């Protein structure tokens, strides 16, 4: 067992996957010689060679399209898009091709590709380098969408994503790359996709989050505990397919719910979760569902960033409102 940060855990998982399957290829901008801007692919070129670790030209659309072609031939490409702000050109390749290949060919072709990209804010990097487009991907049938919140999850979920027979969008919270540290056993054991993780149990209110917001939710839970409020924290981890069961079970227990995400409120994935709760747990609710999200505006400069992104205090305040509701 080694203590690593989140980006090192990603690196371990990539190396492990490449080690065990020579059909796993890593490609992207500066992933080879440079080892990735965040060093996620550090050392892979040296270890696995330039045939399997490809420095690509700056051409996101083709990086994704190429991966679809590779995937259709049984390879397992892991493409890195350097920042989620650069990911929009590949939505065409994902929505039009990767996500539909299985369906369009009635299962004769599949696309076991992974697109990795650092997501979210908190590194004072303004627009293009701070966004959270997970809901856009979750809206596309045929894609899985995964966001880890800790080194251990990053390792286990990325291995699962690479081994998965279908395309996975794997979004890595940039601000946790170095900030999140934890023990990882590099034994090749994958987590299961499509399952939420209950990180902390509590009986009064359920805090639902993913990525970097999980850390904020845990901090909020600690603050609430001091006030005698028991908060249950759920790390959604896989947005699609969504593990509604775990969420509904928790709401059945607590009756109150705060959903937190960095992406803007409108059309955010919190709305989907709220919808599921309304469908399946309406009569368990003791208070309206609270959503804490980014605002419906462009991500601002560093000085306003802390106002934009939800944090532990906003989450805790929402939980208090839910607790006070009569």
């Amino acid at each position, binding site marked *: 067992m080694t203590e690593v940060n989140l980006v090192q855990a990603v690196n371990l998982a990539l190396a492990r996957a490449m080690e065990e399957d020579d059909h796993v290829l890593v490609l992207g901008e500066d992933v080879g010689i440079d080892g990735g801007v965040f060093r996620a692919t550090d050392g892979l070129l040296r270890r696995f060679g330039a045939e399997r670790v490809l420095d690509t030209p*700056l*051409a996101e659309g083709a990086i994704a399209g190429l991966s679809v072609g590779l995937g259709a031939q049984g390879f397992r490409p892991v493409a890195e898009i350097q920042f989620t702000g650069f990911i929009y050109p590949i939505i065409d390749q994902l929505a039009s091709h990767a996500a539909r290949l299985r369906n369009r060919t009635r299962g004769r072709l599949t696309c076991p590709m992974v697109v990795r990209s650092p997501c979210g804010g908190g590194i004072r*990097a303004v*627009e293009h380098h701070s966004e959270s487009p997970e809901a856009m991907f979750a809206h596309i049938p045929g894609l899985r969408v995964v966001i880890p919140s800790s080194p251990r999850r990053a390792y286990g979920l990325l291995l699962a994503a690479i081994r998965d027979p279908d395309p996975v969008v794997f979004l890595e919270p940039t601000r946790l790359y170095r900030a999140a540290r934890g023990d990882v056993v590099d034994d090749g054991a994958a987590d299961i996709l499509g399952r939420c993780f209950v990180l902390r149990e509590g009986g009064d209110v359920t805090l639902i989050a993913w990525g970097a917001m999980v850390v904020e939710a845990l901090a909020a839970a600690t603050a609430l505990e001091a006030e005698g409020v028991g908060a249950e924290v759920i790390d959604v981890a896989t947005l699609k397919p969504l593990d509604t069961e775990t969420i509904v079970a928790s709401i059945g227990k607590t009756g109150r719910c705060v959903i937190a995400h960095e992406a803007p409120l409108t059309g955010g994935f919190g709305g989907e979760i709220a919808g599921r709760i309304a469908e399946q747990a309406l009569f368990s609710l003791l208070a309206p569902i609270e959503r804490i999200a980014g605002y419906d*505006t462009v991500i*601002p*400069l560093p*000085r306003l960033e802390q106002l934009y992104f939800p944090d532990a205090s906003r989450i805790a305040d929402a939980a208090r409102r839910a607790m006070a509701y009569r």
Partner: protein
Amino acid sequence: MAKSAPRAKSTTPPKTKSQAKPPGKALKSKTAAKVPAPTAVATSDRILRYYRDMLLIRRFEERVGQMYGMGLIGGFCHLYIGQEAVVVGLQAALGPEDQVITGYRDHGHMLAIGMEPKRVMAELTGRRDGYSKGKGGSMHMFSRAERFFGGHGIVGAPVPLGTGLAFAQRYQAGRGVTVCYFGDGASNQGQVYESFNMAELWKLPIIYVIENNQYAMGTSVKRASATVDLYRRGESFAIPGRQVDGMDVLAVRAAADEAVEWCRSGKGPMILEMKTYRYRGHSMSDPAKYRSREEVNKVRTEHDPIDQVRNRLLEGKLADEARLKAIDNEIREIVIAAAEFAQESPEPDVAELWTDVLEAI
């Protein structure tokens, strides 16, 4: 206006047939000759002006680097040090009707255009007096007054946007030309070629300036491009191209003059590949492991654009040390004042978080 001038007030793109003449046959392929001789007749005043403008960019960027290191500037930040001759030489060939668009390594462009150093710096520090009210940062500044259309963080983005700017100029039937800067890395983006086709098809007045600083972020052009003579990238669209020593401001000026004339006379786009070099990393967070210190030092000592002009001035006795010293001092004052202004300007109002998303929410 030339024959192929746009038909003003037409809502459709000019028909290609009426202007299907090849854009200067003589200028195709063969004319895509390498490095034209610097023929610009430059008076000493002109060269001094280049020296001053390049030095302003150099000193400004050095200061930006320091302030970034001190945590006064947030976000990603890409310095222009080493490439100064490109914008200064290009800008010298432009007139008040021309407009500019570029990518994220944009501080030098704004200074060369004549935008205020203090307001550029205030944007870098995220303050209210910055060109984007402290909301855009290093990569996203604009000035309608100076016809500077950004400042864009996405690799290759200026190319289609700039093509649209040039379309507007053509539609308005003025003399204006758009100068669209992008890098060697961006030249491998698909959107570049979609734009090239339209620009030549509709004979748009746009100069595509490829600032080939040899590295697409951390990947050398040789490792990222199937063909490295980027001035030839327009050949299949019949867009003429020139390869220029982008470290020599006079060579840049000469090439710019030719390109501006080409575009103004309605002949369509032209590509200028500027062979240049950035001394610093791709961004402030890039340790630049992908190249050797020797390589950087060799360019600095042998091809520095500012040293070249300085030597030319002194050896040609166009200026003496005292004159250059006076310029150095003037620049230093400007940069100090900009840095002070950028730290004194107030923070943006919290309410700014919700402004300018839509005209009205």
